[in-house]
């Protein structure tokens, strides 16, 4: 795994963790599935993993956007 990929993933995990912390529900009794704490845990973990994926994809695609721009700029400058 390249250093850039590790940094991107690290940023995605931190950003998702902050989002997760801010997303604490207003209700505190976990009342919808009262019989299964495991289901609640799964719900939180799945949400976190999906958020990491979205952040990671975002950072990766933003980088590519800048790379495209640099390539096009170079092509324009090469043109007579």
């Amino acid at each position, binding site marked *: 795994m390249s250093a850039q990929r590790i940094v991107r993933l690290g940023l995605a995990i931190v950003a998702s963790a902050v*989002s*997760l912390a*801010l*997303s*604490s*529900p*207003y*209700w505190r009794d976990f*009342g*919808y*599935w009262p019989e299964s704490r495991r289901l609640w845990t799964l*719900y*939180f973990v799945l*949400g*976190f993993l*999906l*958020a990491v994926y*979205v*952040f990671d*994809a*975002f950072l990766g*695609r*933003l980088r*590519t*956007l*800048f790379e*495209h*721009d640099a390539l*096009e*700029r170079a092509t*324009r400058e090469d043109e007579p």
Partner: protein
Amino acid sequence: MIRIEYQTQRLSLRFFLLMLVLFFFQAGFGLLLTAQHIDPTLLAGTLNFNVARAEHTNLGILWVLSGFIGAILFVGPLLSKRELAAPGLIKFLFYALLAVVAWNVATQWLAQQGNAGWWLGQPMLQEGLEYLEGGRITDVVIFVGFAILCYVLLRTFPRVSNWNEIHWGLGIGVVALTLVWVFGMFFVERLDLQEYFRWYVVHYWVEGVWEVIHISLVGFLLVLMFGASIKSVGYAVFWGIAFVWLSGLLGNAHHYFWIGTPEFWQFWGSLFSALEPLPLIFCFWHIYLDAHQDRKPIGNVPAFAFLLGSVVLEQVGAGILGFTMTFALTNVWSHGTWVTLSHAHLALFGTFGMLGLAAAYYAVPLMRGVVQQFDQRLGKLAFWLVFTGMLGLGFAFAIGGTVQVFVYRTLGLDWFGGDVAPAMQFAKLMVPAFGLVFMIGVCLLVYDLLTLGLRAKATIDGPAAAPAPTGWGRRLYGWETGLWLLAMWVFGAIITLGLLSFNLHSVQGGHRLFPYLMAGIGYPGLLLTTLLFVGRFLRSLEARCHAAAAQAVLPAGLQAASG
């Protein structure tokens, strides 16, 4: 593009003009509402506040849709390299839209009489659902209108195998526009379920469908204005849409917090809506990069100003202000208060309204054949008036909303008993003040676009009148843009902290210093940063004309030496 390439593009003109007329009346109703807020007896019994408000919100949706239709019809032939299919149907669509507008405006008054026009178990005349107040007859006509738009666009487009990302974005956008509308077309007796489907239409439209159309149109307008490559714009459009759906489809659950839907939505609704600004940040960088791809002078400043305003207010109004109130822990306080109004005005007018105005400023001069001798001064002035006016309105609503949350939600004082209104009085006075600035801008831009190419030609400033490429007009680099964006988000974080602080026992016990301080720093900081950033961005682009003029008068030898 300096002239109209396909004659059917001209069919878009009538939709742009209708957009302007509706925009004028919508803003007028807005001003009336600000007066009724100050004096609740104003026109009571004649034009009640709830009716005027329904007219304001409905006209807001109708003029945005009219702008979308105009923009889609204008770019459709360019994307397809052929004339629009079924021009007769497009003319019919225009008259259907006129009929819907007239019907909608006329029937809102019936709400005051308690008459919904019940027939066959349906409210035929008006139904009192916020934003979707038109009755079932209107709903059916709108559905037919959307179906016509789908048919025309998809028939105009080339074979699917030849579609690029912009075709896909617009194609999916108009089909989804039609399908999601269906959820607002039936009556459910259970109020919570009816509310669920109302949110379904209003918010899946805005955050799932309109955003897709917005991204696609912004992309193509950048291609037209800056000659950006379709390939790289297509990449940005594809991923912009992908991020809208990756975040927004689940994130839309932030509207399910308090309407009777299961409690578990509070977590995923908060988490995924926190990701909703990502596509907007993506779009923000996309417009920066494409506008700076070459350093050629910008031909049509008002069109680009409105396009930039659309993307920046999308970032600020929908992205940052949306983020601040999207968590269950902040939304529980801000929901249904003026804090939401601040977000709604900046996001709806900014993102979608300004896009329609940008498309109109691009298309109308072309259709009126004045692109070469187009006096842009009125357009630029109108842009600054509506942009500043709207930021001011956002500020007034946000400050009023913060007071409202404290007095109404945390202290639990009476709304109807008259405790809240005096506390919000200062903000209530700021709204018409900024509203007036906005209205003057609206009048100017409506006058400008309606009469462009028809009024006497004015003297047009030459390139030398453009700002010098120094100081505020120097080139805007990526790192500086990043700093502006960061500053906006820092102020957004301060606002979020302020809203979160309403959960503190001390605040609920009557200590208002912290939330007021955070709002007092966050909102003006964010809105001023936005204003300055747009000023800086536009100034640097306008300075290109100056640079180009200077380059043109340099002797050939000097030009070679300057490289």
